[in-house]
């Protein structure tokens, strides 16, 4: 007879002293872990609920401006520094960690229309309603010196926007035409126009750094190549585009914030259909900025809210609003992709978390592992109706909520009318146009 009984030595399962960690032997055999899927589902449900509980995105409000904030700029080298220009011509530089204004300059008379930093972070440029372009030093004047711009360029027309090249000492302004300036000269290297209109913003492509995009009030978006003297091509939309923003990871992609409440993501190689229409705002979209990852972007709207969209989704994943925030004029996603800043009409700059339920500060490794695990679970079970309902729920102000309902009815009516028109006309005489194609009026090369 050969016999062996299961006989464990307790010493190898119990800790030796009270100061030791408890021993936890593991066995991953599935029969010892029954109900794997239902338990994971319950964990995912709990994680989703906790995510909504901890979703407190608002961090701080920077007050100090004496008029609405008209433009914002990030510092290319320092995460904590932010520049803002106001409607009374004042420019302020803020320190985000202290949440204090560290410097203020009366830069222009009338609006500060645009502000941008040089790629090295030593100086910044502003344009204003007083037809001037000014270059300022990033550091304040030393004791006894007066606050003065490094250079001032007097122009003939009003400038409405400015952007700096990402690598060279070149910047572009827009107004009645797009001007490209060398920093050393007082007249533009070249100026480009396509028809007569006022151009509201101009943006350099961060990857293909010679490319520019601008949008004008006669509803078009024009693309330029700096190396040529003439524009490349333009696309005309249904309504006016307020700003565009290039994707920092994919050179061809840009997103346009439109007056018709939508945002359009275009591939510049095929402008005749937008890649995606992002709709959720209920009023004109005023500004848009990409996250440094190129996966999401944030948009500011006249409807007193900001929304975060994934690039490949047509609906927003997040909406931020507060009772006191009025029409949001400008928005920026910080370079560490963790925060969002927005400047609004009522003179405040607000700081938000990009991921509403994220825990800030240093995480212990166990905390990090737990959040990663929960994130994966949420992803795994995201399509289950109960979990989906909880994760999608957002509280909205009554004005936005009722407008959404109203617009849904209007959209449904338009659709019905189109169907009826097709039904009651000669077969084939009325063609159905896809929603994406409908919005693009023409592409001109």
């Amino acid at each position, binding site marked *: *007879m*050969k*016999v*062996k*009984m*299961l*006989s*464990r030595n*307790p010493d*190898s*399962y*119990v800790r030796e002293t009270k100061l030791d960690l*408890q*021993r*936890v*032997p*593991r*066995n*991953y*055999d*599935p*029969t*010892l*872990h*029954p*109900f*794997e*899927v*239902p*338990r*994971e*589902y*319950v*964990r995912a449900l*709990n994680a989703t609920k906790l995510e909504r509980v901890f979703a407190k995105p608002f961090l701080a409000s920077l007050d100090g401006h004496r008029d609405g904030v008209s433009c914002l700029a990030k510092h290319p080298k320092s995460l904590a520094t932010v520049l803002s220009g106001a409607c009374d011509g004042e420019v302020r530089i803020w320190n985000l960690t202290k949440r204090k204004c560290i410097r203020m300059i009366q830069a222009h008379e009338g609006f500060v229309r645009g502000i941008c930093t040089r790629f090295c972070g030593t100086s910044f440029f502003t344009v204003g309603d007083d037809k001037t372009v000014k270059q300022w030093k990033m550091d304040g004047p030393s004791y006894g010196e007066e606050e003065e711009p490094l250079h001032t360029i007097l122009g003939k027309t009003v400038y409405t926007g400015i952007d700096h090249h990402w690598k060279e000492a070149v910047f572009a302004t827009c107004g009645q035409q797009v001007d490209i300036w060398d920093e050393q000269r007082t007249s533009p290297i070249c100026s480009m126009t396509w028809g007569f209109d006022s151009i509201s913003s101009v943006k350099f492509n961060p990857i293909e750094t010679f490319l520019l995009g601008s949008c004008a009030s006669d509803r078009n978006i024009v693309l330029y190549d700096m190396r040529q003297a003439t524009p490349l091509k333009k696309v005309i939309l249904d309504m006016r585009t307020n700003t565009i923003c290039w994707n920092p990871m994919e050179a061809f992609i840009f997103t346009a914030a439109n007056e018709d409440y939508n945002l359009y993501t275009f591939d510049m190689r095929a402008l005749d259909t937008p890649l995606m229409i992002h709709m959720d705002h209920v009023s004109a979209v005023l500004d848009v900025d990409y996250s440094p990852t190129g996966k999401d972007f944030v948009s500011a709207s006249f409807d007193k809210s900001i929304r975060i969209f994934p690039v490949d989704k047509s609906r927003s994943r997040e909406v931020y609003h507060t009772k006191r925030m009025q029409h949001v004029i400008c928005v920026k996603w910080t370079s560490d992709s963790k925060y969002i800043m927005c400047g609004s009409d009522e003179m405040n700059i607000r700081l938000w978390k990009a991921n509403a339920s994220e825990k800030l500060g240093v995480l212990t490794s166990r905390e990090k592992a737990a959040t990663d695990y929960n994130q994966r679970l949420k992803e*795994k079970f995201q399509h*289950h109706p109960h979990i989906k309902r909880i994760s999608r729920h957002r509280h909205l102000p009554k004005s936005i909520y009722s407008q959404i309902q109203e617009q849904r009815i209007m959209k449904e009516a338009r659709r019905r009318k189109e169907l009826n028109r097709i039904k009651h006309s000669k077969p084939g005489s009325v063609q159905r146009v896809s929603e994406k194609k409908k919005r693009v009026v023409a592409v001109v090369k």
Partner: protein
Amino acid sequence: METVPKLGNNVPPKKDKLQGKKKKPRRYWEEETTQTAAGASPGPPRKRKRNRELRPQKPKNTHSTKKSRISKKPQVPKKPWERRSPGPQRSLSGAQDPFAGPAPVPVAVVQKFCRIDKSKKLPRSETKIRSRLEAAEAQEEEISVKAARSELLLAEEPGFLEGENGEDTAKICQADIVEAVDIASAAKHFDLNLRQFGPYRLNYSRTGRHLAFGGRRGHVAALDWVTKKLMCEINVMEAVRDIRFLHSEALLAVAQNRWLHIYDNQGIELHCIRRCDRITRLEFLPFHFLLATASETGFLTYLDVSVGKIVAALNARAGRLNIMTQNPYNAVIHLGHSNGTVSLWSPAMKEPLAKILCHRGAVRAVAVDSTGTHMATSGLDHQLKIFDLRGTFQPLSARTLPQGAGHLAFSQRGLLAAGTGDVVNIWAGQGKASPPSLEQPYLTHRLSGHVHGLQFCPFEDVLGVGHSGGITSMLAPGAAEPNFDGLESNPYRSRKQRQEWEVKALLEKVPAELICLDPRALAEVDVISLEQEKKERLERLGYDPGTKPPFQPKPKQKGRSSTASLVKRKRKVMDEEHRDKVRQSLEQQPQKQEKAKPMGARPSALDRFVR
């Protein structure tokens, strides 16, 4: 493995050199490669050579092996070889790694951890979703290989009992085993002589550390049976029908003559649940925190012990219920009835999930194994049957016992114990997931009284038997899972660990509605057909929003709303719809004709005269 370079020097010219039409540039290692193939070295290099030989004839061959990496699941050990870049890896010194690539994993172990059913086809869907599903599958597969690797770290080996040259293990009595094993194991065999309080029911806690038993004449006790430390001992002055630990050893449910009572580990009565009366059997579902009770009145009641609410009270409509067991794989309750059927219940359904006709005559005992694949039943017809619970509920094997078994129990590793009269028989199978073979018992033991309760102790090679003479703890080598998981049920856990585990377990309490026959159904792709979706919507709304309501002409002014004109307008719409249908059918017809036509030869001018 021999060192290759030594042999490499005196090699005849290679075969592939002769074969290749276009002479390939020769790499410095090529000589050795073919040599190893010729020599008696293991598989992979040889395979490479074969591939190369086949290439001119069947260029697809290599391609297909590379592409079907995922689908070729069972060949996991070969995978690392296949994936490797051509040519053996050599270090700077010229020595070759004899164990190159990741360590091979036995296929059977990988199979154990495999969670996806390869035989099931993915539903037809968009390519984007499809590729995502495929990626998820590949990931799962990788995980199962990793889990299989970690098997190496398990510390304990399972027990066994073998007879020497044809000796029947059933003839080995407990005293012999006790003599043969070490002192710690021998101490696990004991008898509690409690003749006074009559036949006993018993229950081990989920960690296998604690034992609770209750006698018919009201004796209830709980003890740490390993150290033999008594936790509590009371007499409830009432008949005790059944006894069961709740999620931890601190709580104890006792089915007494009248009502259900809950005691703590000091014997203090915490609750008396009057809504559960005249209970005969108790089962606790640890992941759902549900206490299932079967009563004399024929009700199966689910009590949520975490909140103290009755989740469901189901009328089994089969008279007195006194046979109940749970399926530990999917938490379905099995009830045995006097008409020979076993019915399967979940709290979400008012009707049984399934009914299995098992015996001619009443069912006497039911047991389900830990993997949820086999069910053992015994009936008044003296039969002991084993059923397959996957799919069709077919009997796998049957055996007539001289007396018929009154109590059945499965162990963690698939041993089946049956109590017949005052004898306990244990049958063993091949492995964990295989059914026990009923030909020859593995062990037998005669007790001092009639068996009244049976349970294998989790994580210990011990079978606890409650009988009319008290409690017997008998040794059953090879019954239990040797390696426990510390986060799931740890026999050596401290009080603090237990408390933390309790919080975690309560946080992930599975809702009662999720109990169904397939617990993995929640993770599967929901291919709800359009029909079913429509049907559900119809149920929810009471009407079908898809169908058009019958046309109702609008009332018009100035005498144009006369009955005749209403009818006329209605007619018009009806005709329009009819025309639409005809048009559609006409559009489909010519396609059919066109298909039929080209079969014939060229039409000739004389065809018009053909009748």
